[in-house]
């Protein structure tokens, strides 16, 4: 019989073991790999060197890719906030049958294979796609969208939207509907009610949605790979190339860890600034 103190640990041991095996071990192996020597003639050599990190930090080529990944992820997050928050608000105001129908519509991108989705967008955004046909019809002329960051952002927003809508919707559910009426009765306009009463209360939802969208966008592989092509390299596609084309595993590992660190720093910093501020007010 296990003693009372040890029981919680014993019960969570399987989950811990799984987590250790599936997350921590690969991460540790990747970290170890990133410090190993590499030469194009002989491959991975073992030993200890900071060469991969020095290569990444010292080359403007990598800085540029990290920078592009950053703004693409940031723009995606911003667009998701701008589209997702109103969408969640409208959704929360819908009546019974429509609410579930539209929730399904929002979740639909997640149900479609990423490859199908990406090729769908390449048909829409391609040189002879619907969008360009429309542009020609209104007299703008053809615009190159496919294999530019624009295509990547559009497709990322499409698939990331549910990750923004759902947390915002959840915090909207917690709102007392009478609070909006209270603000109205005190003479606030509809817009003021949204800005002064609703928005501050869904901040935690926006924050967690934003963090999820940013992290997933910054490390997205398939969409930048398929819609950005070789012109728009992002960090995840760069890692893929280093591993599978250059066969420079230590460099790929170093970039992967750098991405992880950057992602962590951005998330923790945002959390510390916004949530700290929020906690002061709400005590949540």
């Amino acid at each position, binding site marked *: 019989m296990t003693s009372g103190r040890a029981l919680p640990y014993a019960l969570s041991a399987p989950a811990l073991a799984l987590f250790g095996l599936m997350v921590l071990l690969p991460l540790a192996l990747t970290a170890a790999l990133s410090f190993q020597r590499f030469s194009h003639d002989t491959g991975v050599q073992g030993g200890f060197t900071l060469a991969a990190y020095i290569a990444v930090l010292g080359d403007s080529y990598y800085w540029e890719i990290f920078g592009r990944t950053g703004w693409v992820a940031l723009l995606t997050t911003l667009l998701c906030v701008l589209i997702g928050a109103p969408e969640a608000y409208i959704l929360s105001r819908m009546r019974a049958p429509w609410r579930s129908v539209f929730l399904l519509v929002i979740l639909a991108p997640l149900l479609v294979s990423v490859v199908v989705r990406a090729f769908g967008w390449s048909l829409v955004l391609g040189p002879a796609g619907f969008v360009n046909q429309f542009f020609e019809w209104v007299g703008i002329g053809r615009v190159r969208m496919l294999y530019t960051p624009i295509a990547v952002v559009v497709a990322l927003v499409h698939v990331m939207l549910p990750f923004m809508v759902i947390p915002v919707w959840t915090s909207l559910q917690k709102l007392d509907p*009478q609070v909006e*009426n*209270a603000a109205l009765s005190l003479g*606030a306009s*509809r817009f*003021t009610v949204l800005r002064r009463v609703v928005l501050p209360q869904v901040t935690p939802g926006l924050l967690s949605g934003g963090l999820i969208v940013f992290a997933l966008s910054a490390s997205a592989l398939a969409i930048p790979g398929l819609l950005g092509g070789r012109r728009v390299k992002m960090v995840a596609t760069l890692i893929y190339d280093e591993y599978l084309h250059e066969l420079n595993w230590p460099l790929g590992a170093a970039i992967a860890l750098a991405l992880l660190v950057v992602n962590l720093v951005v998330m923790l910093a945002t959390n510390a600034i916004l949530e700290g501020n929020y906690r002061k007010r709400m005590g949540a």
Partner: protein
Amino acid sequence: MSFLVLDGLSKSYGDVHALVDMHLAVERGEFIGLLGPSGCGKTTTLQALAGFVQPTRGRIVLDGRDITALPANRRGLGIVFQSYALFPHMTVAQNVAFGLEMRQVPTAERAARVARMLELVHLGELAARYPRELSGGQRQRVAVARALVIEPPVLLLDEPLSNLDAKLREAMQFELRRIQRKLGTTTIMVTHDQAEALSISDRVVVMHAGRVQQIDAPHRLYEHPQSRFISSFVGKTNLVSATVRGTWMELAPGLRVPLAGAAAAEGSTLTVCLRPEKLAFADAAEGRLPVRIEERFFLGSQWLYRVSSALGDLEVACANDGRPPRPEQAQAQLTWSDDVARVLPPEPGSDAAS
């Protein structure tokens, strides 16, 4: 013309008639209680007054101005919600100041008015707290302060005390009345609690199934209920049927009381209301009705007896004067004075229905 007039107000949701032809005239400074069971239309009335529900028919006239079509945010009424609906991300002072901010009251004046209002509800020292740090009673007072600081022509209270425990509820009842008297704000309170409505209202509107049943001062309402529903909803009651015999009503063979009020046809059947506290046990010589005490309940200030008699089961309430109560299963005599038996007007169609 009265200060606030509801003129034939009706609201239907498809086939459901939530409110039917409501007429009410409220004088300036009056405290009106809207009383009724859930689904009686009292909340719909309040929502229509507040502007959250558009009435299907009828008009709302405030101080000579038709406000029926005016949106909620331009009516300027003060509302205290059942859930209080405080802004959780704002301090007590910010909550109270919100309405003044919307009216673009200058900052200095705003602060002064907020401070004065918080003083009135005894929350001066809690101005910097957030709603989650307050107790239920304190939240309720913030809600009252927030609604009153804008100096509304009418204050609407939606079950304002239902979320408080019994002790606090009683204290807040008198507190509400004190504040209302001090400011003279015309107030309409919705409640399902008859004690609450009777104790602080100037007039009570009893509603049932979307219709007004009776509008009267609390004491008159209690003493002269106009229907079977009111006599049982407002206070406890014993309903007894009686037959008209000349100027007398015969409750049971040999048991007569004088027929009060309107004349009724000889031999017709009436419903008579006998309040439990108007009945008393008596010595054998003075008793009108022999009864057998079936059960006895101790209510603190009162003893409530359930007795069986020739009139059926009756409830008798006796003040707890410190003497030992009558034993259960004992025989006793009941008496009452002639003028406490209230004849209920015949209900249209209800005799055939019931």
